[in-house]
């Protein structure tokens, strides 16, 4: 029989960025809060200290900070007619598995998603006509506006020490920033990172071609910084060990050195690590949740944590899984196109070229998580006309390095043999003299890209695995081909000695190589319970005291990295709870 | 030393018979054995000197030289297939564990020789024979699971050099006076079965064998001193006792847990019963008596196993029963020729056929019964396929 713990005002499932922000905000508002994190507690001074953090084999190849697929994973397939099989080891995406979640090992890219995304369907129907959006493309407006979210973007950027250059402050275009961005109240908290040679060479070529390159905004502190909550950041060391690693210099904006310690300093907050939540419990009416069931993974003991409010913040994939396991909301069925839980799963597409410049020294091992220049001319640039191109959404093109560690990165011209002296000569010659130009493209929601529970396979707790059905559709192939063409054209203007040309991803999506940890959708937000799982305050239409925060609320995925809106929405939901929900518990919409 | 002490007590010590070739040897099939090197790395290890009697160096190579024999490794059998009547088996399904591919191997006859535990599991998974139910005491598959019990004393002789690292799999002397000597009157002791005693070395491998007087601390200089002092000057007198079958010791399929093929795990329900406790106490008494008579410097006395059986420490790999042989289908799974009462073209070997476990190690009868069944198949079954009883 599970041991029942003392009831609290709020229980938080998963302590990454979203869980950390809500823990701080609600604990500071005096609420009694328990956070349950399945991972372990790690301390930067001990776990991320030099020299052991500089271990590519352990942290990149062996996924030390990531989800352990022996315990829990997904089954995957490309379409509903295929039999889904387990993702037996990590590859395409790498969810985190420690206190601080994926935000410990992320690179820090932080974007503001604008009304281009929030009103995507009405924008496209107004400009290109209803029939431009294919029947199976199930994109929909989000039910929120950029103006509503702007102050919360600002709050997240200033908390996470984002370095960048504003392009539009209150309508005035700023030189060096992104001219197409929506108006900001003020600049980024920190100036952009020192540009590296590869991003400068790209920017020059882009400018000559009439595009508008700008430094990618990223939560790597370009200078020492103290954020509004008093959390202290060291300056980024451009160590080249950012992606997949914890930051030893406290320079990367992560919850474990900002919001989580503040929450933990409050007596009314308690963190229980090694606590794996297996179910959210509903009351008899099914209209409210009463708490969660979890297992202490140190000894297998089971507990019930009663709470008057449940906050599901356990990374996009796990959030959807827990909703399905707990039977909250109607599971989505692609055939009848009914139900909402699991609907609109989206991912990221892209293309990349490698340019080789005999004699140049790019020193690729010197980089920060955000050491790139990028451009939005094929993304939120209003003049980018999709009429003839026939695809929805856009992509950004960028260059620079986020990692160049040698097990994973040894660029050689195509056709170089895989071993032997000729291979060693090419590897030695081109490691320092190559650079990449890559595109990151959005993925539009589709009727046949969705989550549900797998009928066969189970996790270490005997619970069904979640099944992911996903493939790139025609829209993404068209966008990818367009992006590859632009990249190759731009690359040629830089006349490299060799060029490995970019090509669109038109083969079926494969789980094997790493591509991106931007898994979005599954419990999407929206304006009515018929087409969404959550309202604009990320409150469940089914149980008003359940809030679900993470990229799983996105009705589609854009070219931008998801953490900007994810952080902003966490603050937005925290405000809605503090200022309105607790005073008058019930539906906020 | 043990033999001498046993003799003084009027017991009858004799060297334990064991399949470690004391001299180079060629067996009747022409398989060649080297002489045992007394290397001390016998049980748990493969034998580098070809001195240990294993199928790997005797019967298997002979079979493989035969063109009509084929060995498929990495082949995991998941089911024995029955025909529609359920009276005959038609072959097996198995998975190639190199790539997960599934195969069906049809056969005129199926012989189940996959170790006692796996044989019972496969019968249960394949639904051959009625599973045993302890409440109604009906059904036979899974019935009469037995194990091994025992007790042991450690004797410390200051200054003696036993050189424990020089040993074979069975370098001990045993006595059967409390096992096969029918004059051993069990009446006053109230237990069925018996035990044999043995003195000598099992092995000297240091991670697991560092004999220490009870109460020695577990770390620090005192511990180190004791380990250095007693490693070479301690010996063991141990007993191996039989376990009688019991209504509540049995196998069945587990309702919750599954193996890597998604098939239900087998559930083992077992504990020592009063019969084993009494026998254990008797054995401990005799061990301690003999041990004291050898007046060791110090001694850790033998104690009977009366705690619930625990899966944790190694005790023995003598798991018997589950597919027991017998005289009628009502109380057994296979007849005297190890032929399934349910399907006459299915034979089941191994210690799983033992209705109970004795003090002796099981491989003697297991080997003999294999030859016995082989003869029955060759000489009678093939000529006239059908029940041999």
């Amino acid at each position, binding site marked *: 029989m599970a041991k029942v713990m003392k009831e609290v005002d709020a229980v938080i499932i998963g302590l990454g960025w979203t869980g950390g922000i809500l823990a701080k905000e609600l604990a500071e508002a005096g609420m009694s809060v328990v956070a349950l994190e399945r991972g372990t507690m790690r301390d930067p001074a001990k776990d991320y200290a030099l020299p052991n953090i500089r271990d590519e084999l352990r942290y990149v190849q062996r996924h030390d900070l990531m989800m352990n697929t022996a315990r829990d994973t997904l089954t*995957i397939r490309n379409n509903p007619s295929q039999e889904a099989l387990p993702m*037996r080891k990590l590859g395409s995406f790498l969810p985190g598995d420690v206190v601080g979640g994926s935000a410990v090992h992320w690179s820090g890219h932080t974007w503001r998603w604008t009304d281009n995304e929030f009103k995507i369907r009405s924008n496209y129907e107004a400009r290109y006509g209803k029939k431009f959006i294919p029947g199976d493309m199930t994109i929909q407006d989000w039910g929120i506006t950029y103006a509503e979210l702007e102050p919360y973007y600002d709050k997240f950027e200033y908390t996470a020490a984002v370095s960048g250059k504003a392009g539009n402050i209150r309508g005035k275009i700023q030189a060096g920033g992104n001219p197409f961005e929506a108006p900001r109240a003020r600049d980024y908290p920190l100036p952009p990172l020192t*540009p590296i*040679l590869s991003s400068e060479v790209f920017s020059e070529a882009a400018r000559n071609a009439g595009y508008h390159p700008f430094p990618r905004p990223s939560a790597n502190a370009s200078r020492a910084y103290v954020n509004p909550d008093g959390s202290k950041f060291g300056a980024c060391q451009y160590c080249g060990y950012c992606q997949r690693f914890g930051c030893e210099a406290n320079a990367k904006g992560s919850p474990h050195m900002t919001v989580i310690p503040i929450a933990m300093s409050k007596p009314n907050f308690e963190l229980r690590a090694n606590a794996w939540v297996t179910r959210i419990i509903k009351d008899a009416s099914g209209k409210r949740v009463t708490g969660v069931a979890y297992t202490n993974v140190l000894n297998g003991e089971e507990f019930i944590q009663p709470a008057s409010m449940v906050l599901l913040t356990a990374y996009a994939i796990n959030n959807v899984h827990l909703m399905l396991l707990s039977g909250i909301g109607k599971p989505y069925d692609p055939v009848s196109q009914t139900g909402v839980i699991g609907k609109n799963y989206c991912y990221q597409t892209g293309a990349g070229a490698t340019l080789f410049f005999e004699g140049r020294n790019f020193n690729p091992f010197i980089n920060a998580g955000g050491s790139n220049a990028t451009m939005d001319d094929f993304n939120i640039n209003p003049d980018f006309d999709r009429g003839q191109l026939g695809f929805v959404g856009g992509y950004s093109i960028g260059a620079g390095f986020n990692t160049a560690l*040698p*097990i994973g990165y040894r660029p050689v011209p195509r056709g170089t043999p895989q071993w032997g002296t000729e291979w*060693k000569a090419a590897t030695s010659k081109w*490691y320092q003299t190559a650079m990449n130009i890559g595109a990151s493209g959005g993925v539009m929601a589709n009727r046949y890209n969705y989550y549900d529970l797998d009928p066969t396979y189970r996790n270490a707790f005997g619970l069904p695995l979640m099944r992911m059905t996903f493939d790139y559709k025609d829209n993404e192939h068209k966008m990818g081909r367009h992006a590859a063409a632009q990249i190759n054209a731009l690359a040629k203007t830089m006349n490299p000695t060799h060029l490995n040309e970019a090509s669109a991803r038109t083969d079926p999506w*494969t789980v*094997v190589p790493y591509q991106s940890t931007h898994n979005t959708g599954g419990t999407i937000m929206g304006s009515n319970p018929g087409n969404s799982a959550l309202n604009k305050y990320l409150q469940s239409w089914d149980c008003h005291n359940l809030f679900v925060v993470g990229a799983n609320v996105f009705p589609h995925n854009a070219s931008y990295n998801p953490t900007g809106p994810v952080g902003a929405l966490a603050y937005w939901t925290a405000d809605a709870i503090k200022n309105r929900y607790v005073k008058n518990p019930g539906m906020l919409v | 030393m043990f033999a001498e002490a046993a003799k003084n007590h009027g017991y009858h010590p004799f060297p334990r018979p064991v399949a470690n070739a004391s001299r180079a040897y060629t067996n009747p099939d022409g398989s060649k054995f080297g002489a045992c090197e007394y290397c001390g790395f016998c049980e748990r290890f493969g034998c580098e000197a070809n001195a240990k009697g294993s199928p790997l160096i005797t019967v298997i190579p002979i079979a493989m030289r035969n063109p009509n024999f084929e060995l498929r490794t990495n082949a995991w059998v998941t089911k024995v297939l029955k025909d529609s009547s359920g009276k005959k088996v038609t072959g097996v399904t198995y998975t190639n564990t190199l790539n997960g591919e599934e195969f069906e191997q049809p056969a005129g006859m199926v012989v189940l020789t996959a170790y006692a535990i796996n044989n019972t599991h496969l019968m249960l998974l394949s639904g051959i024979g009625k599973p045993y139910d302890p409440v109604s005491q009906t059904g036979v598959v899974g019935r009469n699971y037995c194990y091994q019990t025992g007790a042991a004393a450690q004797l410390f002789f200051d200054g003696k050099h036993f050189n424990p690292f020089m040993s074979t799999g069975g370098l001990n002397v045993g006595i059967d006076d409390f096992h096969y000597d029918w004059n051993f009157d069990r009446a006053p002791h109230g237990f069925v079965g018996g035990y044999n005693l043995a003195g000598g070395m099992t092995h000297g491998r240091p991670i697991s064998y560092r004999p220490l007087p009870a109460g020695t601390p577990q770390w620090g200089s005192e511990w180190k001193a004791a380990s250095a002092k007693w490693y070479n000057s301690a010996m063991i007198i141990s007993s191996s006792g039989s376990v009688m079958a019991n209504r509540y010791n049995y196998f069945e399929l587990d309702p919750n847990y599954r193996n890597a093929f998604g098939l239900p795990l087998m559930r083992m329900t077992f504990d020592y019963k009063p019969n084993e406790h009494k026998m254990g106490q008797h054995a401990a008494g005799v061990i301690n008596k003999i041990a004291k008579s050898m007046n060791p410097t110090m001694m850790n006395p033998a104690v009977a196993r009366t705690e619930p059986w625990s899966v944790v420490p190694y005790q023995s790999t003598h798991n018997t029963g589950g597919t027991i042989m017998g005289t009628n289908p009502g109380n057994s799974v296979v007849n005297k020729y190890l032929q399934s009462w349910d399907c006459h073209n299915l034979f089941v070997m191994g210690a799983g056929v033992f209705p109970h476990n004795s003090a002796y190690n099981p491989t003697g009868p297991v080997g003999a019964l294999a030859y016995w069944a082989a003869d029955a198949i060759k000489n009678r079954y093939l000529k006239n396929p059908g029940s041999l009883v």
Partner: protein
Amino acid sequence: MKDIEKEGFGRRDFLKSAVAGGAVAAAATAAVVTTQPAQAQPAGTAASGYAYLNLDEAAFVEAMVDHMVPADQYSPKGTDMGLAIFIDRALAGGWGKGERLYMQGPWKPGVPSQGYQLPLTPAELYRAGIAATNAHCAKTYGKTFDRLDAKQKQEVLIGLSSAKITFSDGLPVRVFWSTVYQTVIEGMFADPIYGGNRDKAGWKMIGFPGVIATHAQDIIKYRDKKFPADYTSISDMS
């Protein structure tokens, strides 16, 4: 003789290289000329002796890594870089035992986009793959892989990497090859604490400086200039 064997490389290689005057340090890599003087191999940096590989498998791995990573001006040969020791330890350790693999059936080959679907841990896959490759070599050349000449070894590796060779026991060649190739690359470029990349030879080959990596001042200072790497590994700082 026994104590000497304990230091330095694998038994056989120790004798050869000791005679040849430490080929390891003398190799002047094209990327960066190392200034250290030619030293004898520091004792005890990599214990010889294998924890997982049996005699056949050790011979296979040593022959393979020396063929794929020959001694030249870029780096010493594979075994001298400790690649065989790295592979052995990786296979004997948690990764080799499949500690993070989802190993529940049922087992289906699936389609390539569904990734790894074998009921084998990396160590089991390696063992089965070496046996199958040696069987192929015995059938095709009459001897095991390690006894082939360079041309024959090249043919076998091309056969494995292109999956033109198929194994009769059903083991998929492509999966075996990608696991083998991964371990060779990891052995060359992982930190030397794992047994490979001995004396940071892999890093020196490409000019990867290693673990200190506090580069805030270096972006401008070394813009488009060769970075004077002082190769440092985890053990150098521990």
